[in-house]
């Protein structure tokens, strides 16, 4: 129960988050790079954007330091479900594609 500080946080965390932001941006570009199309493309781009926005709000605007534990309890499962969502959407796109190609249209 360190009682000294209010909003002082180790620089390290900021650096971490910076790193994360870079990684996320890299992911967004990767989406472009691999020329992913359709639903997958947009959902991925949107999700990376939202994550970035979330991080920025959370860390740089000091939102996070409030009620952290509660936020974690809500945030973590949401992120997990978000992952599931992304993968499921692209999965159904993939399945649909195989159905189209092999059962309806032909190569």
């Amino acid at each position, binding site marked *: 129960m360190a009682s000294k500080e209010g909003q002082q946080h180790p620089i390290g965390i900021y650096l971490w988050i910076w790193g994360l932001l870079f990684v996320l941006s890299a992911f967004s570009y990767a989406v472009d790079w691999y020329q992913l199309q359709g639903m997958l493309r947009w959902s991925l781009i949107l999700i990376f954007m939202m994550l970035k926005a979330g991080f920025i709000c959370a860390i740089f605007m000091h939102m996070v330091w409030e009620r952290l534990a509660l936020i974690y309890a809500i945030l973590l499962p949401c992120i997990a479900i978000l992952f599931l969502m992304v993968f499921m959407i692209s999965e159904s796109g993939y*399945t649909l594609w*195989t*159905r189209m*190609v*092999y*059962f*309806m*249209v032909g*190569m």
Partner: protein
Amino acid sequence: MFVAIMLTLVTVGSILFHFFSPWWWTEVASNWGNIDDTIILTFWVTGSVFVAICLFSAYCVWKFRYQKNRRADYEPENPKLEWWLTILTALGVAALLAPGLVVWNQYVTVPKDAYEIEVMAQQWYFSYRLPGEDNKLGTSDIMNITDDNPFGINPNDPNGQDDVLIDGDDIHLLIDRPTKVLLRSIDVLHNFYVPQFRAKMDMVPGSVTYYWFTPTRTGYFEILCAEYCGTGHYAMRGWVSVDEQEDYQAWLQEQETFEEMMARNNDNKEIEIVAK
């Protein structure tokens, strides 16, 4: 003392078993020898960590066994050591992962010139379809399946007419020809697995899956269904024969195409009607 010895014995026994037991994988018969190489690499990296950890504990158990007058150290943590171990482990993991991903990339990227064949599964056997002269497989649909058309090939698709059908017999493959297998199931999940080829993939109803390989050795290999598919799962086997060019052609000549099969079915029907 006893415990330390037993721990050591278990470790040494495991190593000896690994090197001297007669049980090891079959000789590879496809281009996926590099999968074997990644496994060997994994063995060396992880095996040495396993041995190190076990022997270290055995040593500790012996060296620091209980003595009334000794005190254990009081050492809550040692961040430096922990960081080093973390980094080393991360390096170890990377060493395993990187080559693994490279090979996986090869596995899912099919060469352009690969010859496509289709394997169709149902409870509890495999059937096969080859593309025929136009080198194209026709589309198929489960709704088309009838007694006459067990593959459910789309009768209106021109690509499908010359497809070669192999129902209830062995499949033959040409040696050294990159082959892409398209996998399809009409009832439940199955899997197309030949231990010597190292490759496998599930067959999913309502979807088509694939993998590719190049057979590199002639021979007669057993196909196993490696995804649980009901009571007959264990009996769902097939055979694949990898042939040289001549044998392969000879075999191929004998097979029936979709067109021929439909014609034969019609003939049979007419005969039946006449007989009536």
